[in-house]
């Protein structure tokens, strides 16, 4: 039985719209819980992977939450819109017990819109300080003047909401950490947290009992900024989210707008974009190798990794002009044609890298200390990986085939033959090895494509002011750390109504608590390093 028929049968009030790639279903927030349970449990489709969760402000129509679901077995795609008509007291039921990725995502929605999720165990703000006034992504938000320079007060309590007998939502406060617990603060200024991330960990001797993540120290409000920009302006911000996937992030946004406009791209653009994405992936994984090894004390590897990364950057710089924020993809193609030296230099790089990778293997991969510190540490089971939505090398290290390049091919990935690297050990070492092997696969992809770049336009003509037809669009690419998605809702104007970026890093920090419990505190550094999150991408 098809998904559509089944839903029609059980929920006659749900509005269903069929799109070529997915179903869009609108329901009222009251029936969300029941609906979600059916989607999750029904054998025929079992939507077990939540790709993205987005809060919405639809003005007069109220607030809303948009869920993007996928079933890993049956490959169905579904977009579920839950509408909350009450603007004064927006309440909705949580789904964080079904999809654990919602744990942090629902807090994000609460932070942005003030939508309270009933049943969520920890309904605090995620990014902004708890003293912050107002909810910034509401359309009628006005920022209070001034900069609060007072130090943050630590707060060990949190709040959870439930319905009493009459069905009225009530709040209940409880302690995250009890008085007698030994709590250690790590970050936000700490060299091993890869940026300004903050953990509070409760310890039992040397072992981790519980971990609490604090985000928001680099929350730049990108999504709100985008709402005040034209489409051509928004693409500049994506480079600065996950700056080690800048080309891929921008690819996702450009592709989303192009698809929405119905713009056809030449083969040449697709080839160039694909090659650039893969160069970026190599660059990112080399940096991962450098920093990850440095975190574990192997300083030599840091210099090796950076030495070879510079070679990739030289190539990228020659064509794009940038080392980190490349600004290369634009809506309708790429900024400029590839440099005349590009093909030659890429080939030189491909000839050079295998020897370097062999060197890494000798220095670090086969190192007995590295093995002892990584094997069996930070076990992330496949079920948890899907539930948390930890895509990318982290998910593939847990045996989950989650590569967007294979699932929903874009660019010219359907024309090249490459292997999706999957390992079943589920530990930090597996995640490390997946990344190392992915460098080789990326090299294979580039090798296949580099000689066959077809002639054609490097940029299609677009209008000076781009207007996207009304509707909602979701596009994803495989960035260096997983699925980077762009959810765009347009009302036909020249500014996007809502632009949400599915962060690759948020699911990764969401799962740190689960996988580090019971491990030693020193292993937290190894686990964090092997997940390889980039903090500005988490906070956006």
């Amino acid at each position, binding site marked *: 039985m098809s998904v559509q028929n089944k839903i029609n049968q059980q929920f006659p009030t749900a509005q269903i719209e069929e799109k070529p790639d997915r179903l869009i279903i609108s329901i009222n927030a009251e029936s969300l819980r029941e609906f979600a349970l059916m989607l999750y449990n029904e054998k025929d489709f079992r939507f077990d992977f939540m790709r993205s969760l987005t809060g919405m402000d639809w003005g007069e129509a109220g607030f809303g939450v948009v869920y993007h679901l996928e079933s890993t077995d049956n490959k169905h795609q579904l977009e579920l819109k839950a509408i909350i008509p009450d603007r004064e007291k927006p309440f909705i039921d949580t789904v964080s017990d079904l999809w654990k990725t919602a744990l942090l995502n629902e807090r994000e929605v609460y932070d942005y819109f003030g939508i309270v999720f009933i049943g969520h165990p920890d309904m605090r703000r995620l990014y902004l300080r708890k003293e912050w006034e107002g909810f910034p992504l509401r359309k009628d938000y006005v920022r209070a003047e001034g900069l609060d320079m007072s130090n943050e007060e630590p707060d060990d309590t949190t709040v959870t909401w439930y319905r009493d007998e009459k069905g009225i939502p009530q709040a209940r406060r409880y302690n995250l950490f009890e008085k007698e617990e030994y709590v250690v603060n790590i970050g936000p200024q700490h060299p091993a947290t890869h940026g300004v991330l903050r953990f509070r960990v409760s310890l039992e001797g040397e072992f981790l009992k519980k971990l609490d993540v604090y985000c928001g120290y680099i929350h730049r409000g*990108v999504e709100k900024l985008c709402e005040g920009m034209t489409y051509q302006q928004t693409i500049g911000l994506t480079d600065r989210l996950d700056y080690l996937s800048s080309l891929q992030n921008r690819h996702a946004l450009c592709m989303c707008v192009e698809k929405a406009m119905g713009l056809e791209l030449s083969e040449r653009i697709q080839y160039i974009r694909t090659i650039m994405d893969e160069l970026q992936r190599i660059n990112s994984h080399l940096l991962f190798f450098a920093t990850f090894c440095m975190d574990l004390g192997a300083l030599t590897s840091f210099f090796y990794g950076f030495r070879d990364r*510079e070679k990739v950057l030289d190539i990228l710089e020659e064509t794009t002009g940038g080392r980190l924020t490349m600004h290369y993809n634009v809506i309708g193609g790429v900024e400029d044609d590839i440099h005349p030296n590009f093909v030659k230099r890429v080939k030189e790089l491909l000839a050079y890298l295998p020897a370097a990778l062999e060197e890494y293997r000798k220095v670090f991969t086969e190192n007995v200390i590295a093995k002892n510190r990584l094997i069996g540490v930070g076990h992330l089971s496949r079920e948890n990986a899907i539930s948390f939505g930890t895509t990318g090398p982290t998910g593939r290290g847990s045996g989950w085939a989650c590569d967007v390049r294979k699932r929903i091919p874009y660019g010219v990935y359907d024309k090249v033959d490459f292997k999706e690297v999957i390992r079943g050990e589920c530990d930090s070492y597996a995640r490390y090895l997946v990344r190392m092997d992915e460098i080789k696969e990326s090299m294979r992809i580039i090798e296949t494509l580099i000689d066959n770049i077809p002639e054609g336009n490097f940029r299609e003509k677009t209008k000076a002011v781009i207007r996207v037809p009304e509707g909602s669009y979701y596009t994803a690419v495989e960035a260096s750390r997983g699925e980077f998605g762009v959810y765009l809702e347009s009302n036909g104007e020249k500014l996007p109504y809502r632009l949400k970026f599915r962060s690759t890093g948020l699911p990764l920090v969401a799962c740190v608590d689960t996988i580090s419990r019971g491990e030693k505190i020193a292993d937290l550094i190894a686990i964090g390093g092997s997940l390889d999150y980039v903090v500005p991408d988490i906070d956006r």
Partner: protein
Amino acid sequence: MEIGKSKKKELVKIKSIPYDEFKNNDYLEEMVRELNENGTNVIVGVLDEAINWGRGNSLWPLTFATSCCGIEFMAVGAARYDMARFGLEVARASPRQADFIMVAGTITDKMAPVLKRLYDQMADPKYVIAVGGCTISGGPFKHSYHVVKGIDQILPVDVFIPGCPPRPEAMLYGMMQLQRKVKLQRFFGDVNKKEVSEREYEEMMKRDMTANS
């Protein structure tokens, strides 16, 4: 006149890089003029120079990075750009041991008190370099609700390095500018702040420890 000029050059010299290749020389020359006018004891002056030579050539940065610029800062520390050539390589994770802070990356409203506190924890004499557009003015995020529009609102900045992110060469240039500035300062009676008494120190520590409870 000629003698004066060569003296200036000598004071703000960076090994093997010509004086004229630096910009903003007039700002440093102004500092030299002031120093000359005020005059100083010969012994103190000589000691100053010796100490400044040591300070200027072993500036230790604080490992501090919030976003994109931090990656370029790492690149400056790595093999190709290698800031060790200028005595800057000993990046310290603790503010107590650092001479200057490279504010590399956007500073948000939530981060601002943390940054201020880090700065307060550093020992005098201390310096601040603002790296990248975000720290200078808010950069591409200027209109955001949660970004500080320039860290000069909260810290005294010595050197600004524009760029988004600045190239490693630009960062090296900025750090060398700081070295030149350090070499010109009077150590005794100026940047070397009088030490606090033990009692005052205790009180400050107490305030720091109880600030959060």
